[in-house]
């Protein structure tokens, strides 16, 4: 039986923490995907590769320009986001109005090309990225040691997710975005430059992926394959949460990270598949996802 071995509190909380860390990345990545899908109706398969680019940009900023982690936290999303905006303006814009399958294929191809290029130049093995010194060390919470950097990642991700939700649901810019999602023609006829907004939205979603990449750099190594490793789980998260749902992607991201972590404690054999099992069950019961609206 899978409860055959004793489970220590340390094990439990340790896996819970890892679950929350992974959940942070799932949430940030699926949030970016949801923002992009909602506005552009594009399933952005390049998301994992752009996440990886975020980590690499952080690495280059540090080793080529001497700009530390905190600069990377700002710089990498801006640089990779600008690269995303360029992709949108030059490539994705040509597929507007076509079946989403086309943009899925295009972004899938882009992901392979980007990852292949990085692998060609930097090899498959990882490069280390040090934890910023301000976040070294750990706190003893009594029942477990909490490394400061991991606490930072969870807290910061939650703040960024909340801020993004707030931006989209509660501000004027968000109202433009929701309006343009619902009826781009009329929104534009009110004098709002919808094509520019679409480009910026794609850049923003991509920037969130790059931000996740920077956060991940000190935890995992900076590797060309890091995006490909995480992206299939992230897509499962998006499907479970419901395509395009902002709040859904955040909640589902964190929750599934924790579920994955707990599975590692109670039934480690299933920890790599539990997300996909949940996806299958959700699809059977609620095909639009837990938070998705039926179109």
């Amino acid at each position, binding site marked *: 039986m899978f409860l055959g071995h004793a489970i220590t509190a340390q094990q439990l909380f340790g896996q819970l923490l890892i679950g929350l860390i992974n959940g942070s990345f799932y949430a940030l990545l699926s949030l970016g995907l949801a923002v992009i899908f909602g506005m552009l109706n594009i399933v952005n398969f390049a998301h994992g590769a752009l996440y990886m680019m975020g980590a690499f940009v952080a690495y280059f900023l540090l080793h080529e320009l001497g700009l530390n982690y905190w600069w990377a936290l700002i710089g990498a999303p801006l640089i990779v986001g600008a690269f995303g905006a360029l992709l949108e303006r030059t490539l994705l814009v040509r597929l507007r109005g076509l079946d989403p399958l086309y943009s899925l294929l295009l972004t899938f191809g882009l992901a392979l090309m980007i990852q292949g290029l990085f692998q060609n130049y930097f090899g498959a093995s990882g490069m280390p990225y040090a934890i910023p010194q301000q976040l070294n060390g750990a706190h003893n919470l009594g029942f477990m040691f909490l490394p400061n950097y991991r606490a930072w990642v969870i807290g910061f991700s939650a703040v960024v997710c909340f801020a993004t939700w707030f931006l989209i649901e509660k501000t*004027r810019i968000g*109202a433009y975005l929701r309006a343009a999602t619902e009826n781009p*023609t*009329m*929104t*534009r*006829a*009110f*004098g709002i430059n*919808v094509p520019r907004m679409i480009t910026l939205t794609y850049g923003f979603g991509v920037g969130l992926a790059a931000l996740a990449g920077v956060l991940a750099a000190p935890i995992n190594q900076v590797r060309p394959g890091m995006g490909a490793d995480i992206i299939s789980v992230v897509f499962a998260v998006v499907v479970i949460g419901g395509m395009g749902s902002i709040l859904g992607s955040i909640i589902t991201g964190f929750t599934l990270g924790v579920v994955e972590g707990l599975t590692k404690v109670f039934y480690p054999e299933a920890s790599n598949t539990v997300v996909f099992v949940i996806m299958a069950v959700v699809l059977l019961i609620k095909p639009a996802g837990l938070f998705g609206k039926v179109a």
Partner: protein
Amino acid sequence: MAMAEAAGPTLAVSGLQAWYGESHVLHGVDFEVRPGEVVTLLGRNGAGKTTTLKAIMGIVGKRRGSVAFAGHETIGLTSDRIARLGMALCPEERAIFASLSVGENLLLPPRVAPGGLTLERIFALFPNLAERLGSGGAKLSGGEQQMLAIARILRTGARFLMLDEPTEGLAPVIIRQIGETIAELKREGFTILLVEQNFNFAATISDRYYVMEHGRIEIGFANTDLDANNMEKLHVRLGV
């Protein structure tokens, strides 16, 4: 009370053609709207009235010809640029955004010029809206949706408004309220291009009429020329 701007027409449409995909809907539309006028496009379903408004706004698939707004040629502009020149469309389907609250819908269109109505004025015209600001856009009744669709373009400072069948499917009491609003806007110097099936409604507020058929203007006449002869023409074309 025309504004003291250039003496030319607010809107001059000539040889306007428009397409939806492959289908050629407008075949050379010519008319003009002068400052401060309320002009109504009449015609049967499918005559091209709605398409004319959309073509002026720049939201049809393809358009050719000339649409000059306050002396500026707009045929090559995108709809957001056209809107920023100071015109606004209240579409037939009302296009209230369901994912936005009533308040967000009201504040959505950006200001394109100074001199838009204040929120106080708007709530004085449409008291129902003030009570529903927090509701979802989809929760409104048909009449409230129509009021919101008109109200939100009054804030923007656009002085040229296109209203597509604002009375369609509404109760008489609400039709009266909308008629009073349009009359009030006219007194304030707004220029209005109206599309209406309801001739009796249009007759209470219009200065001039154009009758459309098969994607062209067939006849045009002023309200003051509504003699037996013109009524007969209307009767033949519209069944009024």
